[in-house]
């Protein structure tokens, strides 16, 4: 059992998400930085989709009742076990009663904490992922609170491993995010598209798991900013009348009526999700074939990711 002594500003239970409910208006949820989430699970001997925690800007403090292992990945953050510093991207065996503190992110936004066995919260519509706006999944559909108690599924203590430095994605200060233009790129002026691709765009503090709100060069519409509402993909870049882009993420609305200039490739969602408010991103257009190639390369690198003995 895990007892939360301080949840951090927004810590939720996530797994790889809820598939098949978008047609009812329920988004998949799941981790924003899938690669970091999967790495944490593998380091504690779990399957990739076992439920763990996603924390925002600051991690939780918790104590464990029984021996288990944890791994902390994602944003760069200090970790201590009973006050002793401990590394990220490494299997951390815990003795009964151990107190773990995951601190404030020095770089990046989303921190992941996996537990050996995975968190045992109820499966709702095929997933344990928390959808905050819909009050669904996770712990009663909400972010963790102080004194929450979470159970783990039974699992053996995993061997100690660490992810080699070469497999740890760097937290970038001004990442170049790859997009495929469309589906409504024709609703913008050439200057508007050029402004979008020139950037840079600053991440705004209102950003959340629903969308990354950005501020930068105004993206001019050629004819109106409203469309007949249609489906919003993961990474859809909506541009409302104010000409400022919003990148829709894992807790997105299923449909919307603003023009979409481009779509961020799923392989870059984790990268944009690690950009801190106040920092900048740039966008680069790729064609569909290149996006498929990048997706394939990303998938292979995630599949190949495994720890070395520590």
């Amino acid at each position, binding site marked *: 059992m895990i007892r939360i002594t301080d949840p951090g500003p927004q810590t939720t239970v996530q797994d790889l998400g809820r598939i098949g409910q*978008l*047609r*009812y208006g329920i988004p998949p949820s799941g981790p924003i930085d899938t690669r970091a989430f999967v790495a944490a699970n593998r380091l504690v001997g779990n399957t990739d989709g076992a439920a763990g925690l996603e924390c925002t800007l600051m991690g939780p403090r918790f104590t464990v009742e029984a021996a288990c292992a944890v791994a902390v990945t994602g944003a760069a953050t200090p970790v201590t076990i009973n006050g002793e510093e401990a590394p990220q991207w490494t299997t951390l065996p815990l003795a009964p009663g151990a107190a773990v503190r995951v601190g404030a992110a020095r770089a990046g936004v989303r921190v992941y904490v996996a537990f050996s066995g995975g968190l045992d919260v109820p499966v709702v519509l095929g997933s344990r992922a928390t959808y905050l706006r819909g009050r669904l999944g996770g712990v009663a559909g909400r972010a963790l609170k102080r004194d929450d108690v979470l159970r783990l599924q039974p699992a053996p203590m995993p061997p100690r491993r660490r992810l080699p430095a070469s497999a740890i994605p760097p937290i970038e200060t001004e990442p170049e995010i790859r997009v495929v233009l469309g*589906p409504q790129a024709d609703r913008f002026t050439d200057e508007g598209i050029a402004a979008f691709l020139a950037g840079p765009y600053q991440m705004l503090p209102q950003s959340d798991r629903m969308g990354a709100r950005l501020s930068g060069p105004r993206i001019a519409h050629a004819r109106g900013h409203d469309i007949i509402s249609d489906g919003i993909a993961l990474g859809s870049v909506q541009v409302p009348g104010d000409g400022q882009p919003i990148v829709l993420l894992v807790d997105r609305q299923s449909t*919307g009526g603003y023009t979409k200039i481009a779509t961020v490739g799923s392989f870059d969602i984790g990268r944009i999700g690690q950009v801190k408010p106040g920092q900048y991103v740039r966008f680069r257009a790729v064609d569909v074939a290149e996006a498929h190639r990048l997706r394939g390369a990303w998938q292979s690198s995630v599949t190949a990711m495994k720890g070395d003995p520590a």
Partner: protein
Amino acid sequence: MALSVELGDEISQETNTRVRALEYLIQAKGVSGVVEMVPSFRALLVYYDPAQTDFDALCATLTSLAEQSSDAVLPPARRVELPCCYDPDLGLDLVAAAERLGLATDELVRLHAGAEYLVYFVGFTPGLPYMAGVPERIRLPRLETPRVKVPAGSVGLGGAQFCIYSVESPGGYWLLGRTPVRLYDPEAAEPTLLRPGDRVRMRPVDRAEYDAIAARVAARTWQPVIA
């Protein structure tokens, strides 16, 4: 990855029927590589896994299925009856809407409750149905200033569209009444009530019946009539 299949550029029952028929055909044929789909007014968003399908082959399959997409391929629609209390305390714009339309409020209610509405799609917030079938006589442009908070269950009119707010959210539709039924209940085994293609009718109830049904809904002992 996702691609959007656009079947028209207008809001019409014919176009939306083709969208839903295409979704149905893709599902029925188990087109490989398709992960999930989102129907809307005139487009079908298709999420696919590029590791499981060739993009060009998928596009060719979808184009060919789009040609077969018509009402004829769809299974019979579900018919759903929802109680609705058209009381000015719950339908915050009922009186203003009637005035704007030059109708008595009970005439507006009669026309609204007399129509059958087709669920074009469900989206935006969990379980929110976008419906068509609003009689010409009671169509109104959306509110000039949207409300910041519309209570869940509010029954709203905006142009040719009719919707029922599934959760408390901002909204720009004229609120005629409220249903005690939960269109989204995160604690239910099936959290969303309506599906694309459902045919919905509103049954006028008075405030006493609304309150009685609301109490039974809260106790989970009430279910709407679905045929």
